[in-house]
């Protein structure tokens, strides 16, 4: 398996700052906006965004939640890999809020579809937007597009994009290529 680094820690930091500036431009002081990270891997990025937003707006009360979509997936009983349910933690009412769904990699769009379904069970938000750190733009299987994109990448389906969250310095995004399939 070949692997190459797509983004290093410094680049991820710059992108995160830029995305937060974009969010602030549209959502102001975040009084009516909540950030929701998608389990399992989107929550690391989402928490980071939440932290930066809190620093920038000096508002420590920005609402944050983790959303698990395991029970809403469309590949249940279809022989795919098994997804273990993770923690779901939304302790506020999403009714009439602006929700920013945050994931690390947007690929087929199916997780986001499941997330929209899951969100529906918590109420009717005023608006839902999607932020992704990496957009694998040519691999979509559903008509779902992000509103905020960190980095666009053109990949083939035998490649994998992996975001490695370590401490601040060690964050990396890899592209893994599986030769056996090429």
């Amino acid at each position, binding site marked *: 398996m070949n692997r190459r680094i797509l983004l290093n820690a410094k680049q991820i930091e710059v992108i995160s700052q830029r995305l937060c500036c974009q969010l602030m431009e549209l959502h102001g002081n975040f009084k009516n906006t909540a950030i929701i990270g998608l389990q399992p891997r989107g929550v690391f990025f989402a928490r980071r965004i939440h932290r930066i937003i809190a620093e920038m707006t000096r508002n420590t009360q920005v609402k944050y939640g983790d959303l*698990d979509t*395991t*029970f*809403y997936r469309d590949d*249940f*009983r279809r022989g795919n890999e*098994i997804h*273990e*349910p993770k923690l*779901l933690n939304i302790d506020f009412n999403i009714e009439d809020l602006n929700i920013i769904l945050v994931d690390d990699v947007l690929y087929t769009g199916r997780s986001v579809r499941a997330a929209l*379904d899951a969100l529906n*069970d*918590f*109420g009717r938000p005023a608006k839902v937007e999607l932020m992704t750190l990496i957009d694998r733009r040519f691999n979509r299987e559903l008509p779902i597009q992000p509103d905020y994109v960190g980095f666009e990448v053109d990949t083939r389906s035998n490649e994998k994009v992996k975001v490695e969250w370590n401490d601040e310095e060690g964050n990396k995004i890899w592209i893994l290529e599986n030769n056996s399939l090429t």
Partner: protein
Amino acid sequence: MSQLSQPHLLGIKNITTSDIRKIFETADNFKQVINRPIKKVPSLRDITIANLFFENSTRTRISFELAEKRLSADVLNFSASNSSVSKGETLIDTVNNILAMKVDIVVMRHQAPGACVFLSKHIEAQIVNAGDGTHEHPTQALLDAYSIRERLGDVEGKKVVIVGDIMHSRVALSNIYCLKKLGAEVMVCGPSTLIPKFIESLGVKIETNLRKALEWCDVANMLRIQLERQDIKYFPSLREYTMMYGLNLKMLENLNKEIVIMHPGPINRGVEITSDIADSEHSIILDQVENGVAVRMAVLYLLAS
């Protein structure tokens, strides 16, 4: 087919400890789901489940039905009393006729011990045992252990006494298997006529004095006397049973520690347990019922996946 080591849930005896832990972890997630304003997820929306109850049931049946509905499955209810069973149809014929209507999972309660094992050898669908005679009642044991874990943090190392009609109780047998697999110490307590001879081979302690058993334990699971299964007299009278093995508040107050009281239901108030205990903060009887739905959702979800 199934995320558990077995395609069916026939009893606790043949599932593994890691199966039990996986069920508990999944049940944690479902407990969160059933406490939300919208208590439903779409996981089993393309699955049909038949609830076949050849024996009376209130809690288990409602609990299974709710669990199925909260997973968005299609549910089919069947009870023997108003069916063709009374016209002489055999078990396999009845079930096969139901399966011909494309049913994926069968939840069955039957008065004959081993009925679910028998059925699993002859039909295609996955089977969940909801109690087979005096044999096993696996989901009850799972929810009992889950409730202990919830109240005391862990099951491992805890001392649990099961009091009452051990001989005729499927809850007792399944509980013993489940608690032993999770590392608890188990004692059974009751009149010696109602304690089966083989029970010691399962690695449980035997005690015929309720006070001593209570002093030993962290958790007491009080069982009902199953008069409907007793074909001969095992003790002189219910009144005498209550005097020897009925739990009352005075006994608990005389202990120098807090213990948790459980009961799988239905309760015969004033026989095995008095009302002041059943309704007290010592008792987790209603938590057991709530956890029953979450645990059954977890079992069905893991079996179906």
